[in-house]
């Protein structure tokens, strides 16, 4: 337990930033000034509108379209106050209860647009927050599913050996031999279109986990193979411990740091996978925001010219991926330190040995 605490103490800047972003997206209903589907047809591709200080109070300028062809905007001159902790648009917090409290909002003709607006005048900042929530939730859920399957299969295959091992590993190889995106598309194409947002999200998560479990199962199997011949496991077997007990008490605890690192490093694949599918129009669809479908809107030449800020969705994906990769690296370094201090022969070295042995045959 002390090892775990010192591990968490070292997550550093990346961990803190991720926690911040995750919490922010969790409270999107409160932090976002507008609903993700709150349209303003008079403000298509409106540029960013920031609150500013005027006569000692925060105000938001009112915009007016002056050139509908090139979508140019000018300030009308009138300003409206920016209020904090105010009552604004009514939203269902987490789909559970109605709430209209927002961190900040401004009365109707004016609109705070921290990052600009999209074609329907929807606030990009709000949509990014909601989209980030989708990324976080889907990837966490997906990682949990694929890790449960992957760890279970790897443990059973590695511990049982023989035909069980062979069948399970060939199955994993089949999954890995299919190009991931094609498999995702194949899975997506057998599910009917026009499902509700939630079921589409579940289908995507399920497909991503189906694609993702195999490589983990292989690695876990390698780890188990190298652990089962170690003295403490042999001793446990000799004392007549049941396989379940050996797996739960002896094998899993020895792999937990490694698993933690692997979990962290596999999250980016899920984030990118969901965003990619939504980018292609196979994932979440309008009006529900996802980082992928916001970016898809920004990829046309017209929007690149008139609303380049939509590319911020891509930037958000990159940010999340960089942070999770960084966090994984930090955790791995910590794991190696802990591992080398505690047990002789680090886990990852054993994993590598198992892998090279496999390649050698």
């Amino acid at each position, binding site marked *: 337990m002390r090892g775990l605490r010192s591990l968490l103490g070292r997550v550093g800047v990346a961990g803190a930033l991720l926690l911040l972003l995750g919490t922010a997206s969790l409270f999107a209903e409160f932090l976002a000034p507008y609903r993700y589907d709150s349209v303003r047809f008079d403000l298509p591709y409106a540029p960013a509108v920031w609150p500013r200080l005027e006569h000692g109070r925060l105000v938001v300028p009112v915009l007016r379209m002056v050139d509908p062809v090139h979508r140019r905007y000018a300030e009308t001159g009138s300003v409206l106050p920016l209020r904090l902790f105010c009552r604004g648009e009514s939203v269902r917090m987490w789909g559970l209860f109605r709430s209209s409290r927002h961190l900040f909002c401004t009365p109707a003709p004016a609109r705070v647009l921290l990052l600009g607006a999209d074609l329907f005048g929807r606030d990009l900042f709000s949509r990014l927050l909601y989209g980030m929530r989708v990324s976080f939730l889907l990837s966490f859920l997906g990682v949990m599913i694929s890790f449960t399957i992957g760890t279970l299969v790897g443990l059973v295959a590695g511990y049982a050996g023989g035909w069980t091992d062979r069948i399970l590993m060939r199955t994993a190889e089949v999954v890995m031999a299919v190009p991931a995106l094609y498999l995702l598309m194949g899975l997506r194409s057998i599910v009917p279109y026009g499902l509700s947002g939630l079921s589409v999200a579940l289908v995507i998560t399920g497909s991503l986990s189906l694609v993702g479990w195999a490589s983990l199962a292989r690695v876990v199997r390698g780890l188990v193979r190298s652990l089962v011949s170690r003295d403490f496991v042999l001793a446990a077997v000799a004392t007549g411990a049941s396989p379940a007990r050996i797996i739960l008490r002896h094998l899993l605890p020895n792999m937990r740091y490694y698993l933690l690192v692997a979990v962290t490093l596999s999250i980016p694949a899920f984030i990118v996978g969901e965003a990619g599918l939504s*980018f292609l129009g196979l994932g979440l669809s309008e009006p529900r925001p996802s980082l992928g479908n916001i970016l898809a809107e920004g990829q046309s*030449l017209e929007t690149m010219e008139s609303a380049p800020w939509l590319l911020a969705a891509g930037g958000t994906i*990159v940010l999340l991926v960089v942070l999770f990769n960084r966090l994984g690296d930090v955790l791995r370094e910590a794991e190696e330190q802990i591992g080398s201090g505690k047990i002789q022969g680090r886990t990852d070295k054993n994993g590598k040995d198992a892998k090279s042995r496999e390649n050698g045959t």
Partner: protein
Amino acid sequence: MIRALLLRLSHMVVVLFGIVLLSFVMIDFAPGDFLSQMAMNPQISPKTIAALREQYGLGLPFPEQFGRWLSALFRGNLGYSFSYHLPVSTLIAQRIPMTLLLTGSAVLLSWGLALPLAVFGARRAGGLLDRSLLSFSYLSISLPSFFLAVLGLLLAEKTGLFPIGGARSSLPPGAGAGARSLDLLHHLLLPALTLALGSFGVLYRLMRSSVLEVLAQPYLAAARSRGLTSRILFRRYLFRNAINPLVTLFGMELGGLLSGAAFTEMVFGWPGMGRLMLHAVMTRDLYLVMGGLLMGAVLLLLGNLLADGLLYLLDPRVREPS
């Protein structure tokens, strides 16, 4: 050696059979079959539909259907595409050259850039070049391919130096082969570059650490102390040893030649396999989807096999029975 190869091949056959089964199960699981859409057409009588079902064996039990599909597969018949009204194999064969052109040039670009730069960077590890390339490769690893492609489009749009999407522009009818291939090259450059940048990061980091590992080996110091010129040192000792871990990666790249560029193709409108697949998924053209999936998987397996063979040729240590 022969035994190992045979074992490998038998492995591959098992995995391949699994993939075929998987894709067939996926087709079978999909609600309805390709006649369901026809059944909604009021001009076609239910009797005709029933006759067609009979004819195509759609009412047969699962194992028999699978047997038929398998035997068709052996004859190179991947099924029929209902949105293009062409055999799936014909469609895929049409698209493969364009995809290979794109991915092949991207692989050439990324390996041609990353390997020399990595050797350079590792020799002065921690230097300015090394550090900036390292942070660049961190970014390259974190950039999803579709976002990179969008950024490429943005570049094309802002500078006007590159054509925006597609593989050909309409040339005057009299244009010769030279002008046409130059035009194709012009269209190829940006998609290939964005693809190459995407794989640069992994390559650079792997090669760099591999070179660093070799540089620390005693045999290199011994060779140097014997007074070998740096050219020989590099060619015989450093490069051949350092390239080893990358051979496996090369196999993976070979395997990804058909499927690795899907996003880039879609963003740039490159007429390759990836776009074909997307269209197939969108129109629920199941046989086309599964055909593409199968081809991609076969290439992936072949790539892995080739990598193992290459490793066998390059590294005497692998050849020795352990």
